[in-house]
């Protein structure tokens, strides 16, 4: 599987993302600088985490207006895969490739910890390595991960099974206590209508080796490799 990782000024988890692709798929991804206007011929484009443009104005807003974005849209329109993690998710919502918006955490604090996620749709190209309803561990690290969408959008997401991950407790229950940022209905990750663009706040790329405390994040990359 061939992959590319977009790099915007202020992005800081591009190396983590590249490592995950390398470790799991054995292929080194191509790093693509934001001023490029074309993408290499790859199966997956990852938009990694960080603080593009310092997250000033709005998270992901400035990056979403970069020269590379039209090429990203074209890649998505062609049905190829796009994975946005954390700031990457925020950038994808700002481009309109995914609906909704990510607001300040309800606590107003940045939070870095391990949470549990329930895989609510294991039939996507990003999650086929997981079982439906499986509860996985995954780190989060963000200050603005509070997913919001209007009721119509939410109904659409739910109706089409496009909520892929939700914050849950160890038993898979969606509770307020298990929700680290106030996201509506515990939403941690969604896909677009075509199912080829995933955005998620948690960082699967930081849980792919035993040394990091677990392998639960590998499934995303394994699924993508399978789909390629």
């Amino acid at each position, binding site marked *: 599987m061939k992959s590319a990782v977009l790099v915007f*000024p*202020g992005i*800081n*988890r591009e*190396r*983590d993302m590249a*490592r*995950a692709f390398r470790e799991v798929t054995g292929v080194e991804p191509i790093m693509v600088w934001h001023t490029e206007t074309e993408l290499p011929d790859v199966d997956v484009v990852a938009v990694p985490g*960080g*603080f593009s*443009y*310092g*997250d*000033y104005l709005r998270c992901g807003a400035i990056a979403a207006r970069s020269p590379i974005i039209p090429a990203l849209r074209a890649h998505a329109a062609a049905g190829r895969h796009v994975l946005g993690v954390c700031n990457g998710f925020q950038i994808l919502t700002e481009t309109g490739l995914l609906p909704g918006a990510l607001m300040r955490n309800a606590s107003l*604090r*940045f*939070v*870095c*910890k391990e949470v549990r996620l329930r895989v609510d749709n294991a039939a996507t190209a990003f999650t086929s390595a997981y079982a439906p309803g499986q509860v996985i561990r995954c*780190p989060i*690290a963000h*200050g603005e991960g509070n997913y919001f969408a209007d009721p119509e959008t939410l109904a659409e997401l739910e109706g089409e099974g496009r909520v892929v991950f939700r914050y849950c407790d160890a038993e898979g229950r969606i509770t307020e206590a298990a929700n680290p940022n106030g996201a509506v209905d515990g939403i941690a990750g969604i896909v677009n209508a075509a199912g080829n663009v995933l955005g998620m706040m948690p*960082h699967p*790329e*930081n849980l*792919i*080796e035993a*040394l*990091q*405390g677990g392998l639960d994040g590998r499934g995303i990359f394994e699924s993508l490799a399978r789909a390629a």
Partner: protein
Amino acid sequence: MLKNDIAITPELIKAHGLKPDEYQRILDLIGREPTWTELGIFSAMWNEHCSYKSSKKWLKQLPTKGARVLIGPGENAGVVDIGDGQAVVFKMESHNHPSYIEPYQGATTGVGGILRDVFTMGARPIAAMNALRFGAPDHPKTRHIVAGVVAGVGGYGNSFGVPTVGGEVEFHPRYNGNCLVNAFAAGLLKTDEIFLSEAKGVGMPVVYLGSKTGRDGMGGATMASAEFDDDSHEKRPTVQVGDPFAEKLLLEASLELMASGAVIAIQDMGAAGLTCSAVEMGAKGNLGLTLNLDKVPTREPGMTAYEMMLSESQERMLMVLHPHLEEKAEAIFRKWGLDFAIVGETTDTLRFVVEHHGQVMADLPIKDLGDQAPEYDRPWVEPKRQPVLAAADVPAPQDYGRALLDLVGSPNQSSRRWVWEQYDHLIQGNTVQRPGGDAAVVRVERPNGGHAKGLAFTCDVTPRYVEADPYEGGKQAIAESWRNLSAVGALPIAVTDNLNFGNPERPEIIGQFVHALKGVGEACIALDMPIVSGNVSLYNETNGEAILPTPAIGAVGLMDDVTRTIGVALAADGDVLVLIGD
């Protein structure tokens, strides 16, 4: 003729924190009255913060050498060999006074400063820690300061992209008027790619990089060394605002530039920015340096030479570049959207010359600015030691369960999770031991493959002990850091220190300092942990009440195989607990 349209009055001299005898020393050195700009330059170079005038004598006695030490104190950060052609670069620095005045921005700029110290050496930062001390939990200011400082440490480190893996948080009424914010950073580099601040060659371009210069923190370095009084709020507009985004760009651009081979010398602009960095680069290289301030990128119109020389705007660097590689260097900085300007050149005159609008605003002997800084052997008295308590004299608790609950529920013993959860401690994907244990462990991959090594980090000191007996307390801080590193399976290799004390003009305070340092030094020798970098913060005192003496220690350990690290969690039911030591 030097422009000198502001009269140098005794009041002005005093406002610059210079004592009459120090001013006399200036007159003797330059043989005339200084200009206003020159007075500013002297005050910046000769304040406690930059010159270490009260502490130098004692710092010289610390053990700083060891088989692994590649670079000890004196550069931006210490460098320690960890084998395989790799080295760890680290240092700790305080931002106490600014954090008390504006907790969020004070903490951010503290973290920014220490990160710059590390990447100025050519290292990519791989870990950060923060040692924090606040007033009593029920003191009216404490909550505000804690919230701001913790958010600021996180706000900067998280955005910059370094995992904050450890630290300390303590509360005590003696910090009511002076919180402590000590930031530690460590980075990794190859031993043959270490960058230093020593300028080399005559006629080399001196280049300004990073963010523009504004009137930030005017006289901030002077503030950081001045004892607080109740109208210290008047000093408020000197607050600097941190821009972690600019710093991240500066990191990437600097590392790219260093890799390109264009850099001869590099120095970050910290306290008293342009002044200290330029003087240091020239003086270390036995060269003169001329700056043309017309070229300095400024954020505000109408800045004077005085203001530019003393500005503490953050996220700036000064470099000496190879002349034929300027264009390449500029292209790299433009790519990262940063300012780049040739602002001067090295000379063979040993003079520090500052020009502005075609006029010479300062012309000073460059070596003397550093070398001739006052150095004091301040009078000190033997500290009063608190008597040793016999264990038998301490009554046993009535109810051990209750006592245990009180302990774990007390502000100083309770969980620090609420702090480190606000810090990204997982970024970079190398955190093997997360915060919450004895020491944090970060994976270090070998350049040529093979099983990964580990670096362990811990911050320690128990100020109550140092107060009770400075010598024993100093030893204890080192011993505790040694134990914390050993407990995760690492071999302790070196330390950095951040010596926070009260007003050195009081003999009791210097007495504490001298004895604590003696303890620290002896313990370092006994445990073979040289001190490779550090920082001194004096005048932590409000209305005559000093903080508890707080020589914070940041210690680093090495493990050959990172998979051998051991945590604090019990592994399984039925595990045997063993108590060792006494």
